[in-house]
């Protein structure tokens, strides 16, 4: 069972729909108990970094951290990935999980923001489990105003006024800046890789 964490921010239906299409069993839930029992955890995200504050209030932050320490595969999507870092310029008072140091910041001036559309992945680590079978230059769909810097765990980057993290991966921790549920067959392959872990 994959728990899709509901923190009342944005459209979780499309992430669930994509996993359903792949034949995965999912539950959309805001309950720490249900998340605790899941074999895998997905934290989707559209909207504002401040919305992740709800995860502190419901106790889900602690649950998620405990599960990650136990080795449960965890996937953060878009704002869900940004939350895996320490903080974001978008809501400086809200703390991320700090699985990686660093801050999400705005795009440099000179490019339009939000970054909307299909951009290509520059694969940096051919051994990524999440990107198995996904070729260098594959296009995926982004829509976001804040970006994750390059990290030691960046396995794929994208170029938009600089180079930033598209995919981060370390052991059982995975983050995608783009929306795999909106990235056609390439996105479905990535979700299938997560499902198959």
């Amino acid at each position, binding site marked *: 069972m994959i728990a899709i964490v509901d923190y009342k921010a*944005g*459209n979780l*239906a*499309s992430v669930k*729909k*994509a996993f359903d*299409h792949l034949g995965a069993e999912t539950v959309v839930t805001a309950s720490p108990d249900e998340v605790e029992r899941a074999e895998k955890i997905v934290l989707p995200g*559209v*909207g*504002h970094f401040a919305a992740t504050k709800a995860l502190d209030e419901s106790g889900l932050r602690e649950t998620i951290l405990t599960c990650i320490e136990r080795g449960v595969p965890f996937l953060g999507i878009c704002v869900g990935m940004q939350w895996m870092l320490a903080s974001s310029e978008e809501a400086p008072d809200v703390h991320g999980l700090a699985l990686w140091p660093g801050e999400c910041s705005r795009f440099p001036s000179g490019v*339009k*923001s*939000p*970054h*909307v*559309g*299909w*951009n*290509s992945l520059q694969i940096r680590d051919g051994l990524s489990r999440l990107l198995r079978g996904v070729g260098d230059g594959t*296009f995926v*769909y*982004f*829509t*976001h*105003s804040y970006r994750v810097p390059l990290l030691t765990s960046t396995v794929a980057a994208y*170029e*938009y006024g600089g180079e930033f993290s598209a995919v981060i991966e370390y052991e059982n921790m995975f983050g995608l800046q783009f929306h795999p*549920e*909106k*990235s*056609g*067959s390439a*996105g*479905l392959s990535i979700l299938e890789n997560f499902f198959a872990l």
Partner: protein
Amino acid sequence: MLTKRIIACLDVDAGRVVKGTQFLKLRDAGDPAELAAAHSAAGADEVVLLDITATHQKRATLIATVKRTAHELFVPFTVGGGVRTLKDAGAIFDAGADKISINSAAIADPSLITCIAQRFGSQAVIVAIDAKRNENGFQAWTGGGRVASGREAVAWAKEAEDRGAGEILLTSMDRDGTKEGFDCELTRAISRAARIPVIASGGAGSAEDFVHVFREGAADAALAASIFHFGLSSISELKRHLLVAGIPMRYPC
């Protein structure tokens, strides 16, 4: 590299596609869910469904159509037409749309943009502007192009951005249906003034027109309502033409 987008548009009335679906050698009328999936498979980067009647009685039909269309679609999906309130928008998002497009209601009450953006995020709000030339420049029209709003189009685009819109869907009323090409001057004026992406619409008559609107018009995306009748068999063929002309495209897709 970020690509330029080709967006397929379906005009829907009472749950059926009524026009603008000639990309695929299919009948004029058709099932929106089937056509949306076919466009996506043929290379459309996004799909827009415009409810052209959007009368009160037909809202329930629209919601059912959106639900069915979203079900097997794994590219971004926008719904426009008749969205007047936060509640209307919420129902459409619940049915599976990723973005909504608002036009007349945003001009009547610009705070609606902020209201929807705060609840669902700016990435989910497209402000559609129907623009027409006058002696001073470009004016925004509402009510499906029947009412002059009195707003200057470039200033309105900037205001929509400041209020939280994530993208602008810009239709040239002067060019719409003419096949004389997009209004590149209009598109460029809005694209240069706004820091959010601009989707150009209205006037396409050839693949070259798309090259111009991306190059001279500085458009970020273009809406393709009906391209089959000017000699292209698919979106994929259009994208190949653009790629050869040096426009970044998601291809093959």
